[in-house]
């Protein structure tokens, strides 16, 4: 059983949990590997927000496409990018999903519907808007999903694309992951009014969901995708969540309000989902078996990644495309 096997079909509760756990453990591994000098530059981890990507992706079908951000490992794994391919990419290896050319902030995996992890705040929104335009033009019942953060709601792309999407009734789902901060600044201190009122001012159906509740995210997403496939236009979800780790590897973390991290740790999605599974009657041995298998999978993935070959500069795709290379 791999993460990639079932993103587009009905997903069991345990499988949702497993996917969240893969992301969490992946991010923990990246953090370690970064400190070991095996991952380079900078990384923006998704730890704490897993329920959003997993909940959204669990509703997607083949043909749907996702635009994620520099904080994109979660979305990538959730849509089915190979754990090995992503890990190899983080380690800069030739076997990485982008041959080592992209790195953490720029992953693309078209085969799994991931059109990009956009390093420019707002870039994911614009790109997804164009994907939705293509779907609509081709009368294809697919949906584009744009992931982005709370801080992104103050940027030009956000405004222009929401308007364009609504005017043209594009099949588009805006997923605003509100983790309260843009980097080290509390978003409410630099944002006028409530984010949700912005799509609403344009007549876009807009809902807040508990972003740590994978089923809540799933339900809201299913609804929105139905509307989109039905030519009813875009939907905006604000998923309330929290980043348990630093914004990026150099984050001082001093900005967190007292008690905030503890409060959110208590309701962090992996823990919450595990508890819910037990409450829903899932046998704890099944859960621990899944946990053990994820841990083992990650260990194997890391071991293979560390042995994977480095890319050769001579394999550059070059400046200009001439059809798709692979």
């Amino acid at each position: 059983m791999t993460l990639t096997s079932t993103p587009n079909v009905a997903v069991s509760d345990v499988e949702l949990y497993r996917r969240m756990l893969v992301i969490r453990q992946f991010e923990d591994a990246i953090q370690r590997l970064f400190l070991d000098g095996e991952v380079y530059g900078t990384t923006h981890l998704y730890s704490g927000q897993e329920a959003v990507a997993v909940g959204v992706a669990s509703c997607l079908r083949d043909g749907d496409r996702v635009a994620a951000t520099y904080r994109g490992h979660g979305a990538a794994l959730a849509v089915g990018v190979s754990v090995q391919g992503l890990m190899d990419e983080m380690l800069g290896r030739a076997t990485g999903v982008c041959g080592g050319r992209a790195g953490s902030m720029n992953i693309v995996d078209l085969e799994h519907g991931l059109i990009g992890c956009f390093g420019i705040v707002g870039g994911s929104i614009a790109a997804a808007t164009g994907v939705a335009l293509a779907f609509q033009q081709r009368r294809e019942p697919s949906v584009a999903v744009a992931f982005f953060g709370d801080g992104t709601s103050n940027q030009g792309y956000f405004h222009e694309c929401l308007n364009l999407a609504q005017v043209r009734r594009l099949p588009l789902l805006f997923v605003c992951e509100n983790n309260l901060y843009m980097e080290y600044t509390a978003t409410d201190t630099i944002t006028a009014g409530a984010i949700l009122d912005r799509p609403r001012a344009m007549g876009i159906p807009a809902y807040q969901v508990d972003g740590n509740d994978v089923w809540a995210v799933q339900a809201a997403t299913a609804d929105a995708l139905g509307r989109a496939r039905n030519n009813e236009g875009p939907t905006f979800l604000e998923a309330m969540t929290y980043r348990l780790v630093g914004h990026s590897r150099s984050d001082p973390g001093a900005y967190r309000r007292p008690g905030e991290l503890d409060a959110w740790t208590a309701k962090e999605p992996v823990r919450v989902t595990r508890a819910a599974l037990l409450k829903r009657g899932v046998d704890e041995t099944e859960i621990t078996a899944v946990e053990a298998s994820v841990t083992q999978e990650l260990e194997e993935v890391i071991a293979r990644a560390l042995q994977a070959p480095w890319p050769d500069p001579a394999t550059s795709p070059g400046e200009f495309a001439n059809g798709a290379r692979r």
Partner: protein
Amino acid sequence: MSAATDAAVEAAETTIELRKAIGLALDEELARDERVIFYGEDVAVAGGVFAVTPGLSERHPDRVFDTPISEMAMAGAAFGAAITGLRPVVEIMFGDFLPLAMDSLLNQATKHWYISDGQGSVPLVIRSVVGGGGRFGAIHSQMPIAWFHGIPGLKIVAPSNPADARGLLKAAIRDDNPVLFFEHKRLYTLKGPVGDGEPVPLGSAAVAREGGDVTIVTAMKGVHDALAAADILAADGIGAEVIDVRTIRPLDWPTIERSVVKTNRLIVLEEGPLTGGWAGEVLALALERSLEHLDHGSRIATPNTPVPYSPPLEDDHFPGAERIAALIKERI
């Protein structure tokens, strides 16, 4: 020659305004390939503020549409559409507005092919009207080439006549890379043969006039100024060869080099501020690759200031044929 060929040749010689040639190329590509879409501000119902695209939205109602004033979204959406199987053509009305569309071109469209390690290409075209001489003032008269010239993965097209405009636009739309397609506002009403409608390969210069004494490399309206200057120079017994680069990037260096080897003197005529323009790139290549053939190399460009409005100021800003000829005589 058969009657059919005769007819084709005759058809190709029908004259047409440059703006109509562009509308024609768009129409032909929209008809040929249903992946092509075309959008912009006032391009559909109104047919474009320079009347370049009238009728297109009637003939291709689902694939030609008007947008809000949202250049960031328009360019960013073109990227998303291009990687999802369409071949979008976007009009950013004036080239002066292109900085608003630049981020997604620079950071998404021209990077996707490489950073995805060749997973997918990005076939999109952005068309804009550019250039001075229309008394439009500093913010509607610029030549944006310099701002985009240093972006790997971006092709830049700059036609000088209707047939080239048609053929180059078709090639741009069929190209698998992001292309900036510039249309000079002073050339929109220029008439010339409509051409055979075949795509003109991006990266092939044309020798617009042959001559043995000096090479003038230029593009767009500069070609016409250079040809007029060449007439003046000819009267003084100086043979000027005029090269119309047609695409700034990729640049057809071999055609330039052949000429420089012959004339030993290189003038690059650029509409745009002297410092940081594409003429500098041509001189740099000449120095790097043809130093031994060079007796002279220099640029004729516009001053390092904005474009002024008032006629005597604007006319002074852009060197005309006489000034060009005089400068060349002085220098070589």
